[in-house]
């Protein structure tokens, strides 16, 4: 009933997949102390996951968590997922938009915990008062989006639901498989799709339509005022303009101009065909429409319409599909593969979407294969007769399924299905094996801090601490190495706070400390600046503790850097090993001081 929802302390839904049982309970302490998102997620992961388990075994645990600002405020539209990553072997952490966070909010669900392994493939639906399990065996190896459509038709409740699904790659436990949310958004990085696949979870839906009383859960007048201010900052200033006009693809031309766009497996930093795959080109020639996540007035999701003629079809044998594109996909499947045709990139995105893989990881795997093929490190026998060449979209299209379906008999594709680290283990080519701590990186060749950011980040993602952004900021005003490292660490700690709310990081310029404090205060959550910053640091300590307990070695990850990182031209010129060495020492000292744990 209205007004009775204790929304500050939403429920936790814990599902034991092994016997398809569930429990819904409250935990005021948890949400009071850790707020939500990554704060709650890392705490729950520590509580429920034993150290050292195989990430693809039933013992792995997946946590989905939203935070206090979700749905209450504009652009607080993300859901955080944490688990042990089958790709990196340590912290798995990923964020997705769509309508998942709003569905969880109206379901009064603060966190969802998945444990065990279902005996058979299933999907489940969470209502406010319980969970229903459905047989998903007839859906095996369907694409994420076909699965999603079927689940939606089965469960009804249009408008009040969100559906998360995996594709064949997740079912086949490919460690960089993604989970797809509401057709166009993804938990992309670090392999959530494989973990769900290992648990026999083909998908799930959250349904929620419980109204929440603003009179009892907020300081109503103040809440409306803060909402209006944040909304205006979001829509009327230029803080987020680039996201709604060209979307993230706006970054292609500026990064290319800075000689920072990874090209040809990171060997080059400038792509001569960048104009043809730029955000500007996509918007003017292929963009079909923009859509938004629930509760976000920006609408950064750019859907291109790809018109394709049937194979050997007449001029009228055409079909059209909508494909969502972003900067990272254009880098990973465009410039980094030397593919300079926007439609070709869309074809690759669509094919990868059907398998349910992380587009960045598979793109970097493709790039390694093309370079290894060129250098005769792998032979036509290894490729089973396939040609794998930079710039040839058909070469890559024809090996996607080979990778997705690979068994141990087809050694090369099986290794490729495990990621760049595995390829390097089997075939060598470490010098051009582009990955950091086993994760294939996002598309930035901006300078030292992009690379260091990948290395020291909790989940080794560009989004951990935005080193690529720091590189660009300091182009004309150099800073000391100490200041640079501190800036990365501070940024990551603050992002832990935003990721506990859980706002979309595209709105990080809107949610400065003051705005965040005011938004929380209007929801009757009192936090000072000092308390928030302390929370960010505590979360970082826990993320690092998790990683080191799982055997992460900073030194080892650093030693395995591909030589290319020190051979490449960036916006800051060629990068030198000596400087990386210094940065690593500065980081280790600073991290040990802050977190009082051994960082090595």
């Amino acid at each position, binding site marked *: *009933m*209205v007004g009775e929802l204790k929304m500050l302390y939403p429920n936790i839904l814990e599902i034991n997949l092994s016997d398809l049982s569930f429990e819904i309970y409250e935990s005021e302490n948890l949400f009071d102390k850790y707020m939500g998102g990554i704060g709650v997620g890392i705490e729950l992961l520590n509580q429920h996951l034993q150290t050292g388990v195989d990430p693809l075994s039933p013992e792995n645990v997946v946590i989905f968590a939203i935070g206090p600002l979700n*749905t*209450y405020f*504009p652009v607080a539209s993300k859901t955080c997922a944490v688990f042990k990553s089958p790709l990196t072997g340590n912290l798995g952490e990923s964020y997705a938009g769509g309508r998942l966070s*709003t569905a969880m*909010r*109206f379901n009064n669900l603060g966190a969802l915990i998945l444990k065990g392994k279902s005996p058979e493939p299933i999907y489940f639906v969470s209502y406010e008062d319980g969970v229903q399990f459905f047989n998903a065996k007839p859906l095996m190896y369907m694409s994420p989006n076909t699965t999603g*459509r079927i689940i939606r038709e089965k469960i009804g409740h*249009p*408008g*009040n639901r969100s559906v998360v699904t995996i594709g064949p790659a997740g079912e086949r436990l490919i460690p960089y498989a993604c989970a797809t949310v*509401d*057709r*166009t958004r993804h938990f992309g990085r670090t392999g959530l799709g494989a973990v769900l696949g290992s648990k026999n979870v083909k998908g799930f839906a959250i349904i*929620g*339509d419980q*109204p*929440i*009383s*603003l*009179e009892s*859960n907020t300081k*109503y007048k103040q809440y*409306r005022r803060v*909402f209006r201010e944040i*909304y205006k900052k979001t*829509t009327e200033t230029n803080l987020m303009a680039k996201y*709604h006009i060209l979307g993230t693809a706006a970054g292609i031309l500026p990064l290319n101009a800075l000689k920072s766009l990874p090209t040809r497996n990171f060997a080059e930093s400038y792509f001569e065909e960048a104009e043809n795959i730029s955000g500007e080109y996509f918007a003017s020639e292929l963009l*079909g*429409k*923009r*859509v*938004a*996540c*629930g*509760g*976000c*007035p*920006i*609408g950064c999701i750019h*859907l291109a319409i790809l018109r394709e003629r049937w194979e050997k079809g007449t001029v009228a044998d055409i079909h059209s*599909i*909508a494909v969502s594109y972003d900067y990272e996909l254009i880098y990973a499947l465009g410039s980094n593969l030397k593919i300079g045709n926007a439609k070709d990139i869309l074809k690759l995105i669509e094919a990868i979407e059907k398998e349910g893989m992380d587009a960045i990881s598979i793109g970097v795997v493709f790039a390694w294969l093309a370079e290894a093929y060129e250098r005769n490190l792998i032979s036509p026998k290894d490729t089973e007769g396939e040609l794998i060449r930079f710039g040839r979209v058909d070469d890559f299209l024809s090996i996607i399924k080979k990778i997705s379906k690979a068994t141990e008999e087809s050694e090369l594709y099986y290794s490729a299905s495990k990621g760049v680290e595995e390829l390097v283990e089997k075939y060598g080519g470490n010098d051009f094996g582009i990955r950091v701590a086993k994760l294939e990186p996002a598309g930035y060749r901006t300078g030292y801090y992009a690379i260091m950011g990948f290395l020291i980040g909790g989940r080794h993602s560009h989004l951990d601490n935005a080193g690529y952004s720091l590189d660009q900021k300091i182009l004309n005003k150099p800073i000391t190495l100490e200041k640079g490292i501190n800036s990365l660490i501070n940024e990551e700690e603050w992002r832990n706070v935003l990721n506990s709310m859980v706002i979309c990081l595209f709105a990080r310029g809107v949610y400065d400390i003051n705005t965040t404090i005011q938004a929380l205060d209007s929801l009757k959550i009192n936090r000072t600046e000092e308390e928030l910053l302390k929370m960010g640091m505590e979360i970082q300590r826990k993320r690092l503790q998790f990683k080191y307990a799982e055997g992460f070695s900073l030194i080892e990850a650093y030693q395995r850097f591909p030589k290319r990182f020190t051979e490449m031209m960036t916006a800051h010129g060629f990068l030198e090993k000596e400087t990386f060495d210094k940065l690593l020492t500065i980081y280790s000292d600073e991290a040990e001081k802050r977190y009082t744990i051994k960082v090595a």
Partner: protein
Amino acid sequence: MGKRLRVKNLDRCIGCLECVYACSRTNEKLLSNYRSAIAVKASGGIERNYVVVVCRGCRSPPCAPACPIPGAIKPREGGGVIVDREICDATKCNQECIEACPIPGAIHIDVDINKAIVCRQCGACVQYCSTGVLVMEEATGEW
């Protein structure tokens, strides 16, 4: 004369739901995706356009005379209707207002309070429509 809400540029809708939340926040003091007089639905998947479902603000609203409870739904100057929440009681009628309205979903019954929910032309949603789908306009059409 008061203005009325018009869904002027439907094709621009990005499905962000801010209008839905604005209505609910302003008129119901709720955060809700259905206790709102305006709804946004996908029509045929995300690739196709969204549909905004809301009262059209008729100057001769068929819902008002159809209501059997005197004073529950009154025509509003400038178009549309005002539901008197004190009088409206969905347990005492056959939801004749919904039957009389040719637009499915423009009026619905809030099952928590048994009242008809219909747009009161306040324009709260317009302030939070970032793409200009919704506008407030003087009634000029024949309806």
